[in-house]
């Protein structure tokens, strides 16, 4: 009953093209943002900010970046962590080497640098598809990590190759506290999510989906496949680059290549597969699944079973349960968690009728 479109008429094209067309969606979003920006800072503690919420948000953003490329434009990639690393190191170097560079701007430049590298590693996509493309993007993963460890210029000749992130001071405010880092991350992630929502509904997003669904048909109706694919790599890598900067600056607090290894790429890929390909919401659901569920499982088992079972065993059992849950959810909903939300919405629209 609550989720009804009836009675909501649009009188202009502008109104019809809004990202959030229904008042239910607008109020839902406003409520969510209010909770995230106002309520959470009051109820959460430092552990929640630094160990749970910040990685959840950053990985959601990284998933969003990869989802634009894989879910919307249909190009598989295993180089996500490499593009994140480029973003992190570029942001660090821009901030370090240009006097008076504002932090936010260096994040943006980090994203742009990642976009450039993304386009270069996206070039093979013009000739190869599917799993073969996946393997060729793997090259980005190894190459970027190799460059960043072997050329000490990138880490400012630091002997260990690990750099402590500088103080996060933006417009005179210190965002270095856990709460400050949370709010900074949340703000950037929220802004980029709105940006992504608009992109996928724009002509660009529709071109991506056309290329994903059938590239021959897309070419036939006049879409330049090469340009569309490369733009997808650029935009996706931009998002990943910013996610990488946030990962280094607000979550880890250090800038090091090992934070961006192949495991991270896989993690991001799993986020979008579990969350749902071709969905913006799915990235958040997938990241919640990947980040929050293991923590929840370990808290539950530590509280309930502590002492009863050997701690080493307990950890293994948690991994087994986590793996089983992934399989269970993918069998129940092969199209990802976002699909569950979609069908709930569809049924809410016609409730209490069936169709």
């Amino acid at each position, binding site marked *: 009953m609550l989720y009804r479109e009836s009675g909501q008429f649009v009188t202009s094209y502008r109104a019809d093209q809004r990202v959030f067309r229904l008042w239910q969606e607008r109020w839902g979003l406003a409520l969510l943002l209010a909770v995230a920006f106002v309520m959470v800072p009051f109820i959460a503690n430092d552990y929640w900010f630094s160990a749970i919420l910040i990685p959840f948000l950053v990985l959601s953003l990284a998933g969003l970046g990869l989802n634009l490329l894989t879910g919307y434009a249909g190009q598989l990639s295993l180089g996500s962590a490499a593009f994140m690393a480029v973003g992190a190191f570029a942001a660090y170097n821009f901030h370090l080497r240009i006097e008076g560079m504002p932090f936010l701007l260096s994040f943006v430049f980090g994203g742009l640098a990642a976009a450039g590298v993304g386009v270069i590693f996206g070039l093979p996509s013009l000739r190869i598809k599917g799993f073969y493309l996946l393997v060729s993007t793997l090259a980005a993963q190894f190459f970027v990590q190799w460059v960043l460890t072997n050329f000490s210029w990138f880490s400012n000749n630091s002997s260990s190759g690990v750099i402590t992130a500088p103080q996060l001071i933006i417009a005179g405010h210190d965002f270095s506290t856990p709460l400050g880092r949370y709010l900074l991350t949340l703000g950037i992630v929220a802004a980029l999510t709105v940006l992504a929502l608009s992109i996928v509904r724009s002509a660009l997003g529709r071109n991506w989906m056309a290329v994903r669904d059938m590239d021959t048909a897309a070419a036939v109706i006049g879409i330049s496949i090469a340009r569309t694919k490369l733009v997808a790599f650029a935009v996706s890598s931009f998002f990943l680059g910013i996610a990488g900067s946030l990962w280094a600056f607000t979550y880890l607090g250090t800038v090091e290549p090992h934070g961006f290894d192949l495991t991270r790429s896989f993690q991001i890929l799993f986020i979008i597969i579990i969350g749902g390909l071709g969905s913006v919401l799915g990235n958040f659901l997938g990241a919640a699944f990947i980040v929050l569920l293991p923590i929840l499982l370990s808290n539950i088992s530590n509280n309930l079973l502590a002492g009863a079972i050997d701690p080493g065993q307990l950890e293994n059992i948690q991994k087994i349960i986590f793996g089983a849950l992934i399989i269970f959810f993918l069998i129940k909903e092969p199209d990802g968690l976002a699909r569950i939300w979609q*069908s709930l919405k569809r*049924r809410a629209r*016609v409730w209490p009728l*069936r*169709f």
Partner: protein
Amino acid sequence: MSTELSNVPILQLQSIEVVYEKVILAVKDVSLSVAANSIVALLGANGAGKSTTLKAISGLAAAQRGEVVRGRVLYQGDDITQANPAALVQGGLVQVLEGRHCFAHLGVEENLITGALIKRPTASVLKQQLERIYHYFPRLKKLRKNLAGYASGGEQQMVAIGRALMAEPKLVLLDEPSMGLAPLVVEEIFDIIGNLNQQQGVSFLLAEQNASIALKYAHHGYVIENGRVAAHGTTQELKARSDLQALYLGI
């Protein structure tokens, strides 16, 4: 005893309702029956629910998140509403999908052989089966070593039908056999269908857009509109009804 058996329709739908993804109602109320040794045509516009009806019978609707929520499907008197598609093929109910779907990277003969494998035939039986198919589709014999992907549209449709026949079916569900084919080729394929029906006693339930050719070969017809049976009868009756022709059949 034998007369009683032949009176049981080979296939019966009792007011089935098919829903995709639990919200999209594709077929609302379709009842039909296919007598043994007969050809029944399922006619109607695009989106009327013809393909969904066929997929509901063969159990393939489940693959597209569809389910039969009401009504029953009876095959030779047994309820097969929830049956497994593979078991149905084993029992002699085979569907030929819309759009042919040959294995493009297999040869024509290899495609045909895949259809028989479910019966685990011996080499000699397999050879016999192939000869039977080549007897009805002489064109395929010339192409037997060619890749199916390089065969023409009409030949691929023949491969698809021949592949279904390799499983020695009693009832074949044919979805749009005339799609994208030249009128002469359509005629050729329907001729073969008619022969198979007369000589081998295979029953056909075919969904078709091309009403005139379907009614030429079928014994019985059902017109589906909007997920419901709008009219049915023998082909003579359907052909005689001028309102139907104007509204649905375009003959």
